[in-house]
């Protein structure tokens, strides 16, 4: 049946986006113990930056996407260096709660700055690449979507390679396992924190930039992806980066299927029921070890 094919493809494409967002979110949660509520806003920054690079300055789509990702990453470094570092030096008491509230404030500032500067209008591009890949007689995959999926796969694979094969990546993982231990073997924790946050924001920016033709930039565009990536993080288990990639595809498929069968608005209900079951039966998440 063609519709099954369609759903499968659309679900996978959605999953790719969620994987980019959720892996970065999980990474920050695991390494820095921050549950970042402003993660969606970095997706937004990526979208806006790619829009200006691509449509206003006329850069090549690939370059525009790169600019989007780098802009989000730079924003992330700025936030980490100013807000998080200040909070960490002032008080580490109730860190998880306080850092979360801090990111709520950051999210406010980024969202409404975008609103004040660029207004409530959508800023998008019709498409980066025109054309389709005919997959089945009735379903033609737009090139933009295909590229967004490729970008997600490349982004997530690069993250996996970086975390498991490079020395710096291993250092980051060691910080997530035991910060004091990592410090004792001479790892610069501050540097690792900044790097982790930059990396996480890079992935969010990449998602926002590569999906610009499908989801135009808007001050509040980040809430949806943020909410979905939290779903994924709970489904997969906190701090498990690779588990969150699998979880992202599970949620992507699930949403597409309920969307097609029950209509808009109900996909959240289905996801909520799944999350409730997970919390009841295996609270550590599908791939959690706690």
């Amino acid at each position, binding site marked *: 049946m063609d519709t099954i094919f369609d759903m499968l493809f659309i679900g996978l494409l959605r999953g790719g986006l969620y994987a980019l967002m959720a892996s970065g979110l999980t990474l920050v949660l695991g390494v820095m113990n921050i549950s970042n509520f402003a993660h969606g806003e970095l997706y937004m920054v990526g979208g806006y930056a790619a829009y200006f690079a691509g449509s206003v300055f006329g850069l090549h789509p690939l370059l525009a996407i790169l600019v989007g990702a780098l802009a989000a990453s730079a924003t992330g470094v700025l936030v980490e260096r100013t807000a998080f570092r200040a*909070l960490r030096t002032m008080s580490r008491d109730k860190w998880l*709660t306080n850092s979360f509230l801090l990111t709520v*404030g950051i999210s406010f500032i980024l969202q409404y*700055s975008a609103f*004040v500067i660029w207004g409530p209008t959508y800023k998008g591009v019709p498409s980066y690449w025109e054309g389709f890949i005919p997959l089945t007689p009735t379903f033609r995959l737009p090139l933009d979507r295909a590229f967004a999926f490729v970008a997600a796969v490349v982004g997530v694979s690069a993250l996996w390679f970086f975390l498991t094969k490079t020395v710096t990546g291993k250092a980051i993982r060691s910080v997530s396992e035991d910060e004091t231990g990592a410090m004792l073997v001479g790892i610069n924790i501050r540097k690792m924190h900044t790097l982790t946050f930059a990396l996480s924001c890079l992935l969010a920016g990449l998602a926002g930039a590569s999906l610009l033709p499908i989801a135009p930039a808007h001050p509040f565009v980040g809430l949806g992806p943020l*909410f979905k990536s939290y779903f994924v993080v709970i489904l997969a288990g906190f701090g498990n980066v690779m588990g969150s990639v699998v979880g992202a595809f599970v949620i992507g498929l699930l949403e597409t299927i309920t969307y097609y069968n029950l209509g808009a608005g109900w996909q959240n209900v289905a996801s909520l029921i799944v999350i409730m079951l997970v*919390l009841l039966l295996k609270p550590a998440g599908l791939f959690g070890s706690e």
Partner: protein
Amino acid sequence: MSNSERKSINPLMMSVMIRLRSVGLSPPTLSFFVILAILPLFIRSEYTLRLLVVGLLLGSQAMAFSFTLSSIDIINFGFAAFCGVGAYTSALLAINLGISPWIGFIAGAIVAAVLGLGVGVLTLRLRGLFAACMAWFLGLTLQSLAAVLVDLTRGYLGLPVPFLLDVASSRPYYYIILPIAILTYVVLQGLDQSNIGLACRAIGQNTEAAKASGVNPTKYKVINFTVSCALAGVLGVFHAHFVGVLTPEIMATTHTTEVLALAYIGGRTSLWGGLLAALVIIPVFEYLRSIVMEVRFIIYGLLLISVMIFYPEGLTGLVRAAGRLAVKLIGKWRQGTGAQK
């Protein structure tokens, strides 16, 4: 006050004062509420009164929110959803079954409490982040459901809700929300002073130690969370019948974050801080509306961040510092006059 004067205070009076103090109505807070009660007598402008009503409403929400946050260290990130559930419950009962909004207050509180109990039982035995996320997801889901079930809720078109009173003025509403605000404060403060509050604070500070002393963390967390949700429901009902139109927007995450910002700017060490913050910030923002339409959220964000990092005591801290200073000055002045005599 000399010794002879102190002795002459009626024992009945003393016991009343002790009672009041046990529910948090110490002389400063009591006078704060008295000032709030007589404030409308000096206000002619309908607009200002309306702002004060909104301020009291948001301030009470901030109190209910920070009750959970400050004692058991749980962020109820679906707070607006619990308000919205209360609001929709009462509104739908009034519209479809013709039930009075006054009974709606009870119905709204019960439905919100049951929902809160469900979320609490499911998530509060786990790490705090689970409760925050679950409440948030619930909020987003209910919001999209309220938008989709157009037959029932009219979605984003807005549900016209009967008003609580048959008057155009905000003045009577002020005298409804003020007792609700005081009641919220008294209930929460009373709970905080009771054994339940003690257990909750122990859990919030060190769960392991609390467990070792025989406190069941989940039980107290659930009680705390449910009470806060029930109050959210009550305040949601007031919102519905005060504004007169209900859209799924009431459950939006932005509302939760606004309440959260108020609670934190008010100061995490006291309940009344959030109320004070709302009463100061909401009117100021509204008056500056032409300039700060959307900038107000940037200001919220900046205030929240700076309070978090630099001055965790927030407005409460400022007021307390001012109070200490006043006591000191009065003491000095007394000494001065005493010396002259």
